[in-house]
């Protein structure tokens, strides 16, 4: 690898690292925020009754009514959704970041990873098996 290539690689690495760090930080602070609101509400109000029988909301309307009545579950739910989506969005946004750097080898790598995640989720959800 020539020196010029090395310099380009280094600046690309720094750019990608920065993008990744921003996504991770955003995901982490949003998650922590929702969780803290949820836990504070939980301790202030106690575990509210009524609560859902299962673990997830069945409609957006149901979720919304929990949210506006400041039910802790709504905030803990939002935090969990943010948490799970952070690594997935990290992969997705990296595709764009590598594309911007014209590093098409890694655009390919990241697209493959993203597709495998999507396929795993579809198969896992349809067949009710854990594939990750």
């Amino acid at each position, binding site marked *: 690898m020539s020196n010029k290539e090395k310099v380009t690689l280094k600046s690309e690495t720094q750019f990608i690292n920065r993008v990744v760090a921003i996504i991770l930080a955003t995901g*982490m602070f949003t998650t922590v925020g929702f969780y803290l609101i949820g*836990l504070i509400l939980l301790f202030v109000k106690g575990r509210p009754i009524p609560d859902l029988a299962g*673990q997830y909301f069945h409609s957006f309307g149901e979720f919304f009514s929990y949210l506006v009545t400041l039910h802790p579950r709504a905030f803990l739910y939002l935090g*969990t959704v943010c948490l799970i989506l952070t690594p997935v969005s*990290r*992969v997705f946004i990296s595709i764009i970041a590598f594309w911007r750097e014209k590093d098409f*080898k890694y655009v390919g790598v990241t697209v493959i990873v993203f597709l*495998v995640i999507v396929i*795993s989720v579809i198969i896992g959800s349809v067949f009710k098996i*854990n594939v990750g």
Partner: protein
Amino acid sequence: MFTTFLLMFLVAIFAGFFGALVGIGGGIVIVPALTLLFHLPIHTAIAASIVSVIATSIAGALSYVDQQITNVRLGMFLEISTTAGALVGAFIGVLMHGWTLSLIFGSLIFYMAIVSYRTRKTEDRLIESGGYTSSGGDKLSRIMMLEGSYHDEAADKEIEYHATKTVEGSLISSIAGVGSGLLGIGGGVIKVAAMNSMMGIPMKAAVGTSKFMIGVTAATSAVVYFIAGGIDVYIVAPVALGTMLGATAGSMVMNKLHSRVIKTVFFLIMVYLGYQMIAKGLLTGFNFKLPGLL
């Protein structure tokens, strides 16, 4: 309720801290803690553990990317094999008995624990002598630019490295994926061992990169659990917050420790995990109970 939450939070801090030190998710601490201490059903515990593994990965990776220890390119490249491995694992699980897999994985982990223990002194010597820098890397690693450097705080030195045996390393990483899909073990242990013992990546770079990768594997599982409605947010929240805090603390300490210390902790965790896997395999396959099985 408050006491239970606080206890869960404290256990999670502990799991997050050690997970960040050695580059694993910490599920091997969280799952037994939730089932034994808090008497939660195993499925609830695994689901909560998977979500909190994402949390430790995000917190740990954020710190390691910031310290430039994580090799994002290497992580992305190996994620192909781990995610694909996890997908394949789901199908193998239908064909093979769980106990066979437990025995195979247990033996594999034992083997890698021994390799890791035997190389714990060479690692510090390689760092001191610049042995990592002089290794050239193989063809695939040159094509995929799998090289990098980080500043080792314990040795106060910039360590440059190039990946070797990229194909073999990818294969082992795909096995890590298979294991995590099948047996609910986070692949971190196998990922770190593959990068460090096989691909010639310095221990700390392997830890930082593994921590970064784990989130993707765990998120894939978590989405499936989430859609199936298996995630109890009242348990996940304190555990995830605790692991985030622990992982942040652990990742700030890690670079200050000598690699042989990290490798010794790693070895102990591997021996424990390997023993648990083999004991589980012997129990379900031959109804033979080893002492200390969780």
